[in-house]
């Protein structure tokens, strides 16, 4: 190797060829340029001109220079010039120690570059090398051994910073076991953070040779972010009266401080689960100081969304703090007053509350007992029920300790039903704007200054038609947070201990007012949640079981799937868990009760590395510059120049065709053509893609459902028995014909529903007004999925006729009571009673006395208290075997005789069928007719 200052040549003999350069120069000069032939009329005048100097007709000097430069570059490139060749001991192995704990993530690329520079130089000299990493891995590291530098280089590229601290003492032990021959070069790329093993490791390394410690230097120090401190609303009285409250989040960054540490400023970001940045705050650390703090101000709706804090432009495990469910805490519980009964969307309180609260609060629902078992910020009780004495103490205690209880009025919220009301209520409510009332529904008044709703715009269309009234009292005005235009309170609140009891004097459904339908309702609930104290992350809701890892951070602050080496953490031990190979920082625990394990939470204060022996050489990264080989650069430059020479030669010899010289017209034409082609291409593709999408979407609706939607029709459930299905099919078919003849209901061919169909959903049943189910003893039990689909259908306003003839000798076998219970028990069927004589079913089309079928005496059961669906019973259960009475064969002859008999009964059976269908189609409007006789009587008087 030839060395010239900082440049060395690996193959210097190639330079010898440079001696031939003058020869090339001569050869180039001697080559005459080519002759052009020109026809010229005045050639005669040129014949006897004095000849010009021949020597002038050589290659231009600058072209000569270019060609010689090409040769020079090629020769230099072949000679392998290398910059910054390391002048170190030529022999002896290389030991590289690399800190790869969390602190090394800062300037990691510089560290890797330094190690690569060392190893590449060792590789050039064929020195053996070994790489020692100081951070423990999840599994035991294999013993160290010397290997060729090239293999170690591959190891380095696979190394990444780990999200836990280093263990230098363990590394010292591993190094101690290393067998090295000769005097080694030992380099330690340190992260600059002190730990107990520094002196051990230094001593172990010094046994092999001179130790050089390379650090990032005082200017670049690893940065640590401490878990932010969320200032929960503690002075509720003050905050209760301030609209638009906001939270301050205390941020703290710390570093390894030395006397020369400069002042730094870093931006801390709050990021939500989707990666959207919610807020940025600058945190600065003064020169020479170890830490700096700042406060991040943000409204609580945003604060609840925070998923992590990180430092902008510095993605490491130490600067990333994960926020867990403990953090996003304004849990709101909705106590469901009606645990039993059919839930109807759009008609129950919980639905409106859930829709309004879901955008900004963590929602839970369930009974009071269940809700209060876990920390809760806000408890919403809708439906106006009484809090049972057994639960009263518990709820009171929760309110006193800072809970916010929001109650809504309702028919059952009577005067002073329990002590957890902010004001005394008067017995009986107040209705405005009813049919018999002269006054109209009242709008809201602007919110009082002392109210948390202060400043919100009151829409004009929000009116209240019913409310509960407060007993006048001296402090009523102070307790009122919202009132109506006539001064009566709409929302009242009272402070209880550290918490609040808030009462809406209307229901949470649109029955009493239009408030739940307005955007104002959402805003009011949001303000209320802001008023609540929140739940401090005191670990009070520890999960007793093990917390499974959900996602873990890597050394660069990225969340990822936990690997197989990550172990669950026992719930009670979580508070003391530290970031370690088997428990890296990350999120643990089930959804909804996730806990975050943050690296910074358990780290000691950062100290500069001490305890190194005085004989150690300390350097910074700048001292290790990478060796650079210029061979590829020089050769490419030579090639480029050669190409340029080619072009120049062509130009000089005028070998470039005329059309290529310069033609702006042709260029613009080509450009236009390209653009047009592009447009055509894309324009062609896009509509086709859309069309394909549309076709795919259409295909999702199956043909039967589409037919049912397009034309109203009856449906029956396939029982699995061909015989029974035939009865149902022909019965409904005959009934459809009767309906066509006698009524305005012109229905299409009845449909068949297969409960065993894997794709059966309520959506597929919903188009049918009636589903007729003839249950027999041999009825195969449908899968659970089918039951839930039927439940869904009933809940959304469908009607099922269960026809279960239990008489001995009934077609398909009389069903026993146990079998019927078995099937109906799986369905969410409301309480049923025997149909009364004045039931709408008896008068929905024909005036009937009972609804006979093949049998006339079986009772017909209907829903007892059918209030959900416009007063229409969702089930009709009978044993009259209607379908058998309706069924006709192909010739129009009745298939089965009626019992006890007579065509009169069959006609009645048809009339019963017509009534059933009309009841399902038209609802309860005939119910009004029940009162007609008495009204007429009264009018005639």
């Amino acid at each position, binding site marked *: 190797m030839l060395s010239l200052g900082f440049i060395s040549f690996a193959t210097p003999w190639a330079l010898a060829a440079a001696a031939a350069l003058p020869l090339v120069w001569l050869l180039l000069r001697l080559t*005459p*340029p*080519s*002759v*052009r*032939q*020109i*026809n*010229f*009329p*005045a*050639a*005669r*005048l*040129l*014949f006897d*001109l*004095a*000849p*010009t*100097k*021949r020597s*002038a*007709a050589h290659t231009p000097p600058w072209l000569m220079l270019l060609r010689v430069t090409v040769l020079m570059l090629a020769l230099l490139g072949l000679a392998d010039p290398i910059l910054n060749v390391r002048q170190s001991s030529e022999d002896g192995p290389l030991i590289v120690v690399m800190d790869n704990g969390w602190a090394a993530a800062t300037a990691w690329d510089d560290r890797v570059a330094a190690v690569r520079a060392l190893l590449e130089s060792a590789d050039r000299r064929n020195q053996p090398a070994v790489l020692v990493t100081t951070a423990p891995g999840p599994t035991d590291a294999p013993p160290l051994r010397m290997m060729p530098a090239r293999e170690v280089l591959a190891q380095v590229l696979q190394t990444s910073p780990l999200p836990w601290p280093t263990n230098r003492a363990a590394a010292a032990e591993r190094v101690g076991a290393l067998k090295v021959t000769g005097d080694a070069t030992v380099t330690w790329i340190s992260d600059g953070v002190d730990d107990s093993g520094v002196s051990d490791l230094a001593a172990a390394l010094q046994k092999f040779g001179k130790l050089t410690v390379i650090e990032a230097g005082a200017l670049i120090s690893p940065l640590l972010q401490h878990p932010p401190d969320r200032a929960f609303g503690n002075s509720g009285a003050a905050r209760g009266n301030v609209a638009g409250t906001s939270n301050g989040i205390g941020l703290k960054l710390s570093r390894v401080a030395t006397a020369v540490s400069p002042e730094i400023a870093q931006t801390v970001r709050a990021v939500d689960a989707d990666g959207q940045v919610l807020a940025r705050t600058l945190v600065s650390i003064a020169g020479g100081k170890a830490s700096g703090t700042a406060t991040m101000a943000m409204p609580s709706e945003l604060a609840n969304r925070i998923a992590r804090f990180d430092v902008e432009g510095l993605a490491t495990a130490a600067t990333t703090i994960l926020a867990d469910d403990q953090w996003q805490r304004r849990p709101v519980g909705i106590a469901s007053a009606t645990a039993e009964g059919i839930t109807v969307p759009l008609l129950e309180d919980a639905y409106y509350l859930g829709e309004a609260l879901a955008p900004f609060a963590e929602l839970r629902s369930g009974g009071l007992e269940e809700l209060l078992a876990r920390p809760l910020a806000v408890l919403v009780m809708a439906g106006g029920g009484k809090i049972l004495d057994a639960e009263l103490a518990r709820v009171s205690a929760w309110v006193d300790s800072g809970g916010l209880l929001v109650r809504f009025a309702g028919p059952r919220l009577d005067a002073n039903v329990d002590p957890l009301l902010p004001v005394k209520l008067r017995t009986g409510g107040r209705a405005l704007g009813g049919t018999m009332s002269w006054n109209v529904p009242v709008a809201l008044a602007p919110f009082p200054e002392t109210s948390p709703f202060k400043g919100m715009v009151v829409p004009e269309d929000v009116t209240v038609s019913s409310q509960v009234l407060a007993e006048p009292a001296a402090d009523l005005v102070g307790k009122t947070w919202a009132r109506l235009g006539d001064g009566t309170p709409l929302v009242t609140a009272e402070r209880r201990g550290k918490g609040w009891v808030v009462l809406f004097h209307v229901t949470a459904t649109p029955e009493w007012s239009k408030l739940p339908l307005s955007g104002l309702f959402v805003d009011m609930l949001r303000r209320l949640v802001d008023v609540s104290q929140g739940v401090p992350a005191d670990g009070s809701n520890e999960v007793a079981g093990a917390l499974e890892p959900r996602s873990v951070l890597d050394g660069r602050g990225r969340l990822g799937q936990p690997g197989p080496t990550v172990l669950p953490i026992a719930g009670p031990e979580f508070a003391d868990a530290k970031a370690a190979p088997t428990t890296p920082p990350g999120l643990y625990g089930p959804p909804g009760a996730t806990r975050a394990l943050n690296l910074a939470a358990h780290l000691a204060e950062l100290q500069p590395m001490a305890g190194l022996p005085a004989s150690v050489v300390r350097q910074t990264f700048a001292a290790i510059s990478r060796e650079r080989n210029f061979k590829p650069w020089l050769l490419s430059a030579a090639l480029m120049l050669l190409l340029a020479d080619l072009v120049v030669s062509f130009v000089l010899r005028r070998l470039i065709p005329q059309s290529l010289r310069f033609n702006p017209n042709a260029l613009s034409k080509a450009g236009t053509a390209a653009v047009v082609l592009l447009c055509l291409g894309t324009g062609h593709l896009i509509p086709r893609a859309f069309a394909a999408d549309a076709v795919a979407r259409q295909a999702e609706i199956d043909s039967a459902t589409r037919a049912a939607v397009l034309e109203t029709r009856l449906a029956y459930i396939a029982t699995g028995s061909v015989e029974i299905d035939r009865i149902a099919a022909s019965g409904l078919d005959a009934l459809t014909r009767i309906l066509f003849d006698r009524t305005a209901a012109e229905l299409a061919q009845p449909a068949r529903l297969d409960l065993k169909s894997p794709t059966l959903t309520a959506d597929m049943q919903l188009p049918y007004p009636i589903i007729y189910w003839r249950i027999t003893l041999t009825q195969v039990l449908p899968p659970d999925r089918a039951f839930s689909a039927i439940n869904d259908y009933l809940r959304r306003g469908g009607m099922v006729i269960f026809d279960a003839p239990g008489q001995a000798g009934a077609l398909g076998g009389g069903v026993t009571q146990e079998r019927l219970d078995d099937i109906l028990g799986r369905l969410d069927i409301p309480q049923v009673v025997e149909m009364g004589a004045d039931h709408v079913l008896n008068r929905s089309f024909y005036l009937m006395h009972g609804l006979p079928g093949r049998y006339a005496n079986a009772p017909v059961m209907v829903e007892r208290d059918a209030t959900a669906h416009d007063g229409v019973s969702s089930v009709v259960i009978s044993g009259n075997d209607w379908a058998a009475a309706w069924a006709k064969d192909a010739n129009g002859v009745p298939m089965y005789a009626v019992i006890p008999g007579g065509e009169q009964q069959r006609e009645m059976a048809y009339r019963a069928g017509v009534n059933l269908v009309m009841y399902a189609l038209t609802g309860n409007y005939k119910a009004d007719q029940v009162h007609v006789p008495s009204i007429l009587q009264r009018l005639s008087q």
Partner: protein
Amino acid sequence: MNVSAKREQSHNLRVRADAISAALPSLLVSARRIAASVTLGSHGRRRAGVGDSFWQFRPYSKDDTPQAIDWRQSGKFDTVFVREREWVAAQTAVLWCDTSPSMRYRSSANLVTKAERAAIMMLAIAELLVDGGERVLRLDGQGRPQRAATAGRIAVAQIADAVAAELISTERPEGAPAMPIFSAALPRHASIVLFSDFLAPLEDIATSVRALARQGIVGHLIQVLDPAEETLPFSGRVRFVGLEAEGATVIDRAEEARTGYVSKLIAHRDGLKALATTAGWSFGLHHTDHSPLPAMAALHNAVTGFRR
């Protein structure tokens, strides 16, 4: 020559005739455009004779025929007057345009060839002369009279026809001299206009000019040159080939030969001018990159000026 070869030749002739008739209108049109923009001077002989315009009244003499008496004028006076008309004598102008290969040259596709420009100028002057009542006679490429001198529009059309045919033909008689001798007898006191690049050796041109001057013919030399011939805009190593089989020469650095060439061209032109002056002729210069109008105006003045 077998039958099929004959048929082929006849076909070629017809194709060529088509090309000629296609070329004709453009030649004539551009020639007329140029002629129309040059104002015509008087062509009278300034003495009494056969003509259309009135010259003078003079007293009747016994030699006059009675038909010559102008009775209106005689009625005003006692004497009898005779109306005399100005004598108008048609003069023959002889035109020649060089169509040799060297005239087919143009240095750029944007220019016309020298022969084309010379033909247009010749037709334009023919048009002007015919308009003035003169007769024109064209000499062909070898300097022989094309036919008897004719007057009128038909003469211009005939000349255009013949020139176009000559321009298209690529045939060139073997051993044709660089400059025709013009040995044929021409009408006395005719004037002649020669269009050429006059790049032939000066002696050849002198021979031709002297032959004409000896017949007492007054002439005009119009040198038509391509701009490239004026400036030699070439560079590098170039082999210049003459177009009339005069040979070739290799110039190593054409850009350096420029000065020598230009001075030789000027010397050649000075020789031409001296030749014209000696014979009492005029000399004009035209470049194909210029408009032909100024040259035409100068030429017209020269052709008609001697009569005044």
